[in-house]
């Protein structure tokens, strides 16, 4: 079973600041100041294996508001690897999409391959990518794009 290993790259670091609490709760629509300096989030794992992939972005920063398209790292979900792309316009998220879908599972049939029995007392391997949602100490928007929850969401967003 592959570990869920996430790569956090500079574009994500930019998003970390962009989506930080203070800016996100500011007055609606603009007026946000996203500092685009490199940073190293403390959540990267010590041993990176096959789970991740590189990320890319195409963005611009004009008059203090960030716009552009940002691509997160690839995360394993029960539907297979998923990569999240977030479109930001003037500091607001306007779109979230999965850019990498499970390859052998076209979207229409992707879930048929996982017809698992469900019992309340079933023992689920916590690392098995069989989970639907993640509960953790308050996940703020800064950590979101690199999170397993984001990948699970993206796999199910209407395309």
């Amino acid at each position, binding site marked *: 079973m592959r*570990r*869920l*290993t*996430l790569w956090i790259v500079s574009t994500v670091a930019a998003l970390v600041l962009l*989506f930080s*609490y*203070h800016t*996100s*709760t*500011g007055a609606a629509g603009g007026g946000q100041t996203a500092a685009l300096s490199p940073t190293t*989030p*403390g*959540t*990267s*794992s010590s041993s990176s294996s096959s789970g991740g992939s590189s990320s890319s972005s195409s963005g611009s920063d004009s008059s203090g508001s960030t716009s552009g398209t940002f691509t997160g790292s690839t995360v394993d979900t029960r539907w297979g690897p998923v990569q999240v792309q977030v479109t930001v316009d003037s500091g607001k*998220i306007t779109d979230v999409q999965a850019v990498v879908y499970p390859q052998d599972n076209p979207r229409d049939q992707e*879930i*048929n*391959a996982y*017809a*698992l*029995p*469900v*019992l*309340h*007392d*079933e*023992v*689920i*391997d*916590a*690392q*098995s990518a*069989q*989970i*639907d*949602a*993640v*509960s*953790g*100490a*308050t*996940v*703020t*928007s*800064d*950590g*979101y794009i*690199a*999170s*397993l*929850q*984001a990948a*699970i*969401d*993206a*796999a*199910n*967003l*209407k395309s």
Partner: protein
Amino acid sequence: MTQPTTAELPRRAWVEQVMGLPISVHVRGDAATSTCVERAVHDLFESLRRADERFSTYRRDSEVSARRRGEDADPSADMLKVLALCERARSRTDGAFDPDLPGGFDPSGLVKGWAVERATEPLREAATGSDWLVNAGGDILLHAEPGRTWRVGIEDPRNPDRTLRALSLSRGAIATSGHGRRGAHITEPRTGRAADSGVLSATVLAPTLLWADVYATAAYVRGLRALPWLGRTSGARVLFVCGDGSLVSTLASPTTTGPGYLGRNERAYARP
């Protein structure tokens, strides 16, 4: 079994950022494609935005900010409700939850659960017969139809990219407090310092998100000392992640209803 498994059901997700948190809504079943549900989800986000406008400690024009400045002579009905709930939470947790922090009035730890529950009511109606799940920054309210469950992973507080344990749930709420991605953010009300009770996180299952959230905060502040208290609390189950990565829980406790089981590296707490 002629019923479709959960994996065969249509499923749809929505994500928006409100209150500085990513809020995810998942609907599974026929309602996933219904326009009623679409509208209910839209209303859910709208309701949370209104709650944020009133209760944010970051907005200078919020009612909470006015109260912090001592300028709320005429509190709104929502504020009165929240104040009453805060009082109940303080008393139920013996002060481990307290909105009157040294830095000023801050009901955030209770408002989120309260607001999400209220905002979810229209979805509960619109998605009748289907499964739904709302994840507000790691605190989850969910419902699954008979025979179906949602599988919720508990984040490893030492490495948020991993999950330590997974639970199969069909209704109720689950909330986690602890050292998360933001580092220490829970304040011990009595000292005003960051809580340091020896546990890395506390996860609570409860019938409602408000109480799951409040109890998780209290459990994290108190640490393992909260076990006897939570063991007696009707309808609540707790899972602690200890400093060495081991787990202690009341999930398999004979005092709770429904079947339980222990995960790997997990000890059961039984009512004394």
